[in-house]
């Protein structure tokens, strides 16, 4: 491999973050300890150092949070005019912008993703999400969802660890804009930015009980979604947990939206602009260490250009800088947790056992922390586990096709249906392909683009309902 430019270390300063040793639950406008006194420790996955301990909410705590949310919905937030509700959301958006550096650094420390991404993607999008929804709050009757759309009440929201603050924004902003109040449970490995968000709610003088944050693990989440006092459940996470939630809300009055797993196909036709496609493939699978439900984790490349594309792709992947997430030059950060690392290893190893060819560039991984080198798997067939299961890591499975019909058939040959990509310079072929892909988001000649105005969500076992845009409001209005 030719010489790669060496970069001097350029770490972002941690001094903008003031961490407390312990964090309590955020209920009814204030921080309160969990009744059980139990806590969990949130680690920095880049070096396994402890960042803070966080309270674990039990049934009594969840009950208190739901009651606070109910009171706030009925007495304050529901009766408030949409224009005033909107102004609170505008205010929150502005504070997120003002404190974006602090939150970006904290997110990178808690999650392991590169500062480049938290700074340029997570934070700007989180703020934009509040700003976008703020403007809806007094215009809901124009949203095409009836002339007098009503809030549902109390929303129970459970979010994953891959985009902690951004997923919080995706959940809380539309719920609040539509007049609902929320009880949100962040992921157990990434609770810290949600707790700073709680401080931001205080800073914005948001009425007590409108937003409640209950930290904990799976048990806390289960208690929350099964609580009889919630009217709406919104979950982003694994398909397995999503199934359980769908079963748990069956026969109740609770409305449900689910944003679950994916195994996105990224189709490259022989007329694609190959260098652009290579960039898109890299963004598709290595953005956020591949911890992305809409990742383009299956590359489907037309046979006639497969060799050429793979050679350019390998050259490009060799230039991915893996390491300190706080370094501004880092492209690929740490895997979020030991559990996730072992899952990635297990599924990727199964590929080797099933006969696929495994390739990673030479790269020095740090000794402490959770790390996985960018990996390409070639010679993959549709029956291999690495082609069927979501790996949720920096691992790309490469398959080939000959005809557009075959590309579509292979792309759709999955129980998931969240995202897909199409690379071609021919407009009619792009539209023909996009029309046939059973996926909620189709990126053509681009990948992994997100925007608060753009509805996001899946077909089939990737869940139901949409988040973002006018469509996303439907999930919170009755």
């Amino acid at each position: 491999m030719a010489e790669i430019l060496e970069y001097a270390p350029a770490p972002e300063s941690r001094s903008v973050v003031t961490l407390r040793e312990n964090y309590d639950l955020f209920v009814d406008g204030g921080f309160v300890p969990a009744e059980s006194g139990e806590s969990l420790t949130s680690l920095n996955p880049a070096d396994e150092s402890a960042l803070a301990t966080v309270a674990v909410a039990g049934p009594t705590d969840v009950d208190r949070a739901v009651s606070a949310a109910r009171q706030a919905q009925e007495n304050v937030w529901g009766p408030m005019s949409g224009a005033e509700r909107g102004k609170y959301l505008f205010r929150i958006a502005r504070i997120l912008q003002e404190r974006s550096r602090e939150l970006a650094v904290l997110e990178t420390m808690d999650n392991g993703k590169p500062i480049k991404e938290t700074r340029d993607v997570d934070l700007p999008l989180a703020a934009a999400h509040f700003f976008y929804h703020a403007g809806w709050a007094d215009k809901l009757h124009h949203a095409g969802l009836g002339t007098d759309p009503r809030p549902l009440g109390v929303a129970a929201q459970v979010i994953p660890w891959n985009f902690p603050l951004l997923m919080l924004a995706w959940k809380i902003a539309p719920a609040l804009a539509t007049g609902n109040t929320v009880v949100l449970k962040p992921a157990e490995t990434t609770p810290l930015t949600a707790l700073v968000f709680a401080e931001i709610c205080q800073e914005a003088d948001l009425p007590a009980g409108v937003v409640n944050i209950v930290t904990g693990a799976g048990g806390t989440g289960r208690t929350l979604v099964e609580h009889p006092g919630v009217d709406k459940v919104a979950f982003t996470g694994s398909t397995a947990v999503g199934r359980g939630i769908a079963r748990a809300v069956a026969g109740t009055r609770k409305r449900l939206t689910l944003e679950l797993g994916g195994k996105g196909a990224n189709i490259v036709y022989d007329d694609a602009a190959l260098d652009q496609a290579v960039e898109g493939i890299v963004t598709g699978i290595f953005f956020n260490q591949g911890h992305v439900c809409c990742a383009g984790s299956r590359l489907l490349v037309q046979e006639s250009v497969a060799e050429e594309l793979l050679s350019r792709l390998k050259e490009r992947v060799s230039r991915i800088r893996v390491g300190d997430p706080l370094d501004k030059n880092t492209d690929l950060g740490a895997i979020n947790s030991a559990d996730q690392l072992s899952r990635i290893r297990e599924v990727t190893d199964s590929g080797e056992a099933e006969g696929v060819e495994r390739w990673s560039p030479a790269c020095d991984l740090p000794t402490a922390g959770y790390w996985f080198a960018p990996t390409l798997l070639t010679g993959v067939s549709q029956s291999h586990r690495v082609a069927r299961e979501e790996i949720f890591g920096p691992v790309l499975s490469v398959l080939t096709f000959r005809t557009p019909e075959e590309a579509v058939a292979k792309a759709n040959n999955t129980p998931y249906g969240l995202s897909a990509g199409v690379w071609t310079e021919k407009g009619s072929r792009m539209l023909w392909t996009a029309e046939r892909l059973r996926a909620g988001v189709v990126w053509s000649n681009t990948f992994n683009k997100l925007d608060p105005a753009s509805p996001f969500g899946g077909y089939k076992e990737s869940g139901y309902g949409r988040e973002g845009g006018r469509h996303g409001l439907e999930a919170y209005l009755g």
Partner: protein
Amino acid sequence: MAERRTDAKKTARKAAQAPARLSVRKTYKLYLGGAFPRSESGRSYPVTSADGAHLANASLSSRKDARDAVVAARKAFAGWSGRTAYNRGQILYRVAEVMEGRRAQFTDQLVAARGTDRTEAETIVSAAIDRWVYYAGWTDKFAQVIGGSNPVSGPYYNHSAPEPTGVVVVFAPQDAPLLGLSSVVAPVVATGNTAVVVASEPGPLAAVDLAEVLATSDVPGGVINLLTGRTGEIGPHLAAHADVDALDLSGAGEHATAFEEAAAQTLTRVLRPGPEDGAGERAWLDPDPGTSRMSPFLETKTVWHPIGV
């Protein structure tokens, strides 16, 4: 069986009087993939009028019939969803045209089966025909009403459009066998889904009459498949079927929760029973239900493309 014997006695008495012309009775069968088979199980069940008189034997569908119906609906999906919206609109309008020609049959059926008075039956039949006209007009409108372009922050063309979810199992209202049935089936197929319909268990005959209309209205075989029988027997298999994409639980009654639980295994979309459930044909009279019964069976697809030279 007791009812059958009573009926046989009545029939025997009538036969003794030897009418001038013996009427030709209809065999009520299933409607699967555009054909009218009996249940593969060879079973039937007696259907009675409101006052208990025997009207006919309807096919008692089995699990295998239910699976066959799903296969037929899946097979028809690509073709039906691929048709132009205008073409689907014309076909749904054609359903209304053919129903109009059979007004008398549908009216008589409601009077006989439910003891509805004739004026009321006329009202229900008219509303049922008009329901097909209503959704015929929606086929090429809903995409504009529900979809649109999204003003994203960057140089991208970004557009969201609704697409049909796929194969929808419709548990038709138990107590609204014609207007209720039309009100739940028409919106499902208007948007390009294909349907497996479980007819009202006590009132399946109007559904079979409607299937005969569908068969002569240019609706492609397999787009709407009709099962008659026990909701509690075939429903669990349909609700848990991995190749079913959505359930309309309108007529699922006491089974609604169990079906929703079964559907969770493959994240099958579920429309829960609404306020119309159990309130009879009159509950379905609203002439303008809007998009409320279409949007639960639609997926929003968003397509991005960069803008540049």
